[in-house]
């Protein structure tokens, strides 16, 4: 059937786009690469920072999730929704915000200086871990919160009627849950941090804070040593495969639709101390998330109103085009893959780091064209591919529901594949498609990965432009561009998500 053929070719395209670059990397790396002493350190640093990031994100998420689960306060729903925001927040924007708080001239250092305290430095290991915690603390909190809110209210009622002490209740109800969820949350974050590139690019660097991905980038951009880049890519591939297998074993199912703000009635934690403790955690978490973002907005305004500069506008135009093209491609790709096999395939595809795929594509394209002229198309394809698993996680349940609810009706009406697709399938999937498209657009808009490998000054995207302005110490222009990037990312997400909802009556 036509539909099956479509699924197969979509899957095949994905497999070719993953395996092709890997093959190119393997062939190129064979014997040519020179393993330098620094490379082992990069491997060590990569694993170490990912371990620390996973550990702190999960550990800190426990008191925050606990507090959110048992407190009722003004803005609770909003705060829970905001925990989803880092997912679509461009890394470079978050880094700008974190520098504004924790950086050399950040508000924290100014505060410390006023009291004669020590100066903090954000660059290096702790900066990388800090940024990773910024992104993943909300993720871990959402995973834990979801599990916490799934504890039936009856259990808390029973605990209250038994007169359990706070410690007794913690041991019987909450500790088993933490033990069940926390390892999975840790594993997922560990894997995410292993392949995180933009954070290491902006806050790491130097011999003591270089990740494998960053080393790939440096081998290509600075030394133009393709053999070594390929060898490093191979190392990253092995790392990601092992980590991916671990995560697959430990990972809980993480949803996007988390936290509608459900409230389970609780009778515990009424003492003043427990309340104070919870409110402090909520306040700290909220401040940690919101202050950097607020500073991006505040500091960006002068730069943005000053007109941002020609380079920024061109980069913004590129980014919007890449984001829209990635979204279109990702949707066309996702629809035939919205089944179990497709989802597994897409997850396998992104377990391989975008930089490895980028390196492979670079090697494949080089004999035929100047790879630098292909920067934007390659970024588009890789971004679409990277967003696929998220799009599929959203689309698949809905697609299967349509098939389940109306598959028989389709048969008895003898609908053609075309009629089924255009009259039933697409209209029924509008809402989740809007959401998935929004996520994809925002992810593509904010991505700073493959583009860094390929780009020349004429073909920058907005995130790369922000990075370059930062590197050139044009801080006002960088802040303005970062604000523009923030607005465009969230704006695109909002537009698509809204577009899916508007008039999508059931």
């Amino acid at each position: 059937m036509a539909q099956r053929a479509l699924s197969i070719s979509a899957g095949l395209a994905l497999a070719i786009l993953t395996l092709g670059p890997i093959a190119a990397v393997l062939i190129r790396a064979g014997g040519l690469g020179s393993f330098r002493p620094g490379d082992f350190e990069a491997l060590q640093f990569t694993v170490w920072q990912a371990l620390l990031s996973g550990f702190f994100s999960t550990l800190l998420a426990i008191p925050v999730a606990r507090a959110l689960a048992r407190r009722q306060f003004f803005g609770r729903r909003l705060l829970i929704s905001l925990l989803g925001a880092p997912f679509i927040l461009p890394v470079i924007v978050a880094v700008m915000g974190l520098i504004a708080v924790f950086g050399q001239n950040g508000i924290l250092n100014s505060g410390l200086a006023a009291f004669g305290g020590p100066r903090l430095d954000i660059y290096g290991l702790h900066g990388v871990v800090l940024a990773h915690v910024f992104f993943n603390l909300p993720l871990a909190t959402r995973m834990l919160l979801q599990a916490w809110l799934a504890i039936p209210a009856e259990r808390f009622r029973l605990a209250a009627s038994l007169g359990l002490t706070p410690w007794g209740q913690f041991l019987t109800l909450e500790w088993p849950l933490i033990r069940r969820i926390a390892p999975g949350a840790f594993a997922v974050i560990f894997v995410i941090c292993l392949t995180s590139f933009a954070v290491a690019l902006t806050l790491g660097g130097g011999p003591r804070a270089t990740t494998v991905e960053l080393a790939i980038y440096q081998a290509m951009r600075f030394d133009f040593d393709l053999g070594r880049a390929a060898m490093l890519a191979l190392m990253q591939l092995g790392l990601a495969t092992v980590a991916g297998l671990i995560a697959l074993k430990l990972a809980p199912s993480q949803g996007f639709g988390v936290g509608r703000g459900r409230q389970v009635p609780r009778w515990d934690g009424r003492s003043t101390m427990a309340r104070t403790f919870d409110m402090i955690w909520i306040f700290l978490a909220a401040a940690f998330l919101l202050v950097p973002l607020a500073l991006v907005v505040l500091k960006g305004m002068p730069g943005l109103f000053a007109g941002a500069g020609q380079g920024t506008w061109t980069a913004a135009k590129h980014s919007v085009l890449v984001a829209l093209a990635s979204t279109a491609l990702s949707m066309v790709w996702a629809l035939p893959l919205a089944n179990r096999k497709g989802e597994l395939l897409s997850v396998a595809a992104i377990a391989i780091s975008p930089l490895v795929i980028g390196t492979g594509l670079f090697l494949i394209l080089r004999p035929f064209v100047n790879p630098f002229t292909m920067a934007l198309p390659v970024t588009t394809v890789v971004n679409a591919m990277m967003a696929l698993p998220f799009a599929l996680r959203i689309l698949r349940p809905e697609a299967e529901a349509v098939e389940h609810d109306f598959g028989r009706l389709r048969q008895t009406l003898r609908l053609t594949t075309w009629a089924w697709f255009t009259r039933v399938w697409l209209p029924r999937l509008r809402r989740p498609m809007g959401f998935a498209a929004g996520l994809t657009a925002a992810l593509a808009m904010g991505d700073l990965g493959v583009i860094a490998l390929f780009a020349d000054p004429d073909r920058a995207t907005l995130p790369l432009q922000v990075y370059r302005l930062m590197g050139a110490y044009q801080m006002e222009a960088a802040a303005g561009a970062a604000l523009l990037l923030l607005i465009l990312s969230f704006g695109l997400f909002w537009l698509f998500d809204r577009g899916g909802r508007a008039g999508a009556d059931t």
Partner: protein
Amino acid sequence: MLTLENLNVDMDNSALTGTLSLAPGRRVAILGPSGAGKSTLLDVVAGFRPLRAGQVGWCGADLTHSPPNKRPVSILFQDGNLFPHLTVFRNLLLALKPNGQRASEEDSVRIEGALKRVGLAGMSGRKPGTLSGGQQSRAALARVMLQARPIILLDEPFSALGPALKAEMLGLVRDVAGNLGALVVMVTHDPDDARRFAEDVVLVADDKVHLPVATAAFFANPPEAYQEYVGTQ
């Protein structure tokens, strides 16, 4: 004739067996305890369920291996008969234009005519969600009319309606089927439905499809398996 020969169909913990033939134009009720395989029998006719052994035929043609969309069958399901995002008109149009094309002048006339027949004149622009349960059933029935297939299967389609409305709908089905000259096979758990509507009753019980019996005769002298199921009245 609709013929089911030496059926053997896998069910959860057992297998449904039997032989049955039903003449075109008849109205047949399938009665029996829940879980006995009434709906399974409909699925076999519609082609939704593979056979372990046996044959399905219609007027000399072998349907055993035909996919559902190639069978001369239209179905009213228990629910989900209408696409909720399409207007009644568009829902009905799919019966005439299964390729999703636009309505021709003639299509529109036929659709409005069918809606009028089932008492939904002027409702073609409404979406199913804005209709009552009875109206939704009527719209689905109007579509069965437009499909004009020689076999109509009803899988307890009006079980959510009140008694008066249900009686009315059954009357409507009788008219529609009469006009089409179609064989109607209706699954029900309500003996009154059978009495009111069916000419023949087929009992499905104890993993067996029993032979059809004229309705009056069936209720005058109910088989033992049926008595066990309804209890002594």
